């Protein structure tokens, strides 16, 4: 049994990075190709805005899945994937914000400012992004060393605020049919609930899951 587990672990450990890199690198060029080939429908800007936002949320939620997965499998090395997925989420969120600023509003700062301050779902989206900035900036190993594990973990707990803001942003961005945002929100809620329900006892913790 333990033999099987460890061989599974070896396989996953070998292929996880290439698989994640593929997941990160494939959608963006695909989207750009669709844009250039006019495959994004009648309102490509709206479509692009939705799709970049969805990818950001997918990676953000995926980063949230790492800790539970680590506790369930006992594979401590998974922790490195958490930062990788978080960074991927940040880059998609940056793309999402860029589409909003450049393509949707074309630097119309007056309207953008009005949008961010007057419309709660835009405020929440902006909050979700702003929180990700310091997290992305401190995603290096050097930053972990500099801040120390405890402080680093505390800072990065802000991701919970970011993901909740992002989910609410999605729910309120949708006009009427909230099926899709509720699916994302439900998964995020489960992953957050896992942390509340299954707190690591000193015995269960594998090693301080920093990074």
């Amino acid at each position: 049994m333990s033999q099987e587990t460890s061989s599974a672990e070896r396989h996953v450990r070998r292929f996880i990075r290439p698989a994640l890199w593929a997941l990160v690198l494939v959608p963006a060029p695909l989207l750009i190709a669709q844009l250039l080939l006019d495959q994004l429908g009648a309102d490509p800007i709206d479509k692009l805005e939705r799709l970049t936002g969805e990818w950001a949320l997918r990676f953000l939620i995926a980063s949230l899945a790492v800790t539970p997965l680590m506790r369930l499998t006992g594979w401590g090395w998974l922790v490195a994937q958490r930062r990788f997925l978080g960074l991927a989420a940040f880059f998609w969120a940056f793309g999402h914000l860029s589409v909003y600023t450049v393509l949707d509003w074309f630097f119309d700062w007056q309207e953008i400012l009005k949008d961010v301050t007057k419309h709660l779902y835009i405020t929440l989206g902006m909050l979700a992004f702003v929180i990700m900035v310091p997290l992305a900036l401190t995603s290096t190993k050097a930053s972990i060393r500099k801040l120390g594990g405890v402080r680093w973990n505390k800072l990065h707990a802000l991701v919970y605020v970011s993901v909740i803001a992002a989910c609410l942003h999605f729910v309120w961005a949708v006009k009427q049919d909230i099926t899709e945002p509720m699916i994302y929100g439900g998964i995020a809620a489960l992953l957050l609930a896992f942390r509340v329900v299954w707190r690591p006892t000193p015995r269960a913790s594998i090693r301080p899951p920093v990074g």
Partner: protein
Amino acid sequence: MLIRRPDDIPSSEITPESIYQNRRQFMGAAGALALGTVLSPAALQALGRTGMGMQDDKVTPEEDVTSYNNFYEFGTDKEEPKELAKDFKPMPWTVQVEGLVKKPRPYSYDELVGKLSVVDRTYRMRCVEAWSMVIPWRGVMLRDVINRVEPLPSAKFVEFTTLFDPRRMPGQRSPVLPWPYKEALRMDEAMNSLTLLATGMYGKSQLPNQNGAPLRLVTPWKYGFKGIKSIVKLRFTDKMPNTTWADANPSEYGFYANVNPQVDHPRWSQAKERRIGEFIRRPTLMFNGYAEQVASMYSGMDLRRNY
């Protein structure tokens, strides 16, 4: 721009090729931006002005108007209605006329709109979601239909109902809106010379299913959701009827739904809109640019409260 007889529309406007050309250029520009190519804002501004034709009202390509639809009876994604409505058979069609009319009874499609004078009108269509199109409708004036069915003088409103048939309209199997879809107009709005009952578009005598075949309301000074599709009932009444979006979400949608750049939707601004096929948003016009024809109907009304 307001009203065009068919002979006034140059064939170059009906043929969407040139516009497609434009859109491709825009795609290139957008793509370059997405790729992070260094382009100065000034250069882009110039591109926006010269390449996209900011202020004119070119007819939107038929392909876009028939593939980008809010018709929740056939799915909530805008691409869905084209696919999910393709086997819908609108004929034979009956419209129930009831309420405060001389003789309430069912009318066949031909009895209701047959032999009325057919008009071709190119109108702007402004969606409440802040995008817009320019659509060459074909249809009859609602006023002519109303005169034909003879409402009583006591009728103050006319209410429209969409077909309810979840077997033929799969979107109705999910409770995303309170079915059937209902809309209504005050009698003066219904009798306004802009108001059409569309039966076709782009010079064709039949509407595509995804655009509301066979009968669809067109009120170009109101947000698009007032343009109820696949109408099976006209009811004349003296009380303001409930309407579907106002029922589903009363704080966000009202009875009048007049296009108004000064009154925002609670969740987004209505000051600007993106014309489908263009890049930079253009300012939204009061009553969608039809103030001259409709503003007098609302004089003295607080349009902030009567949204």
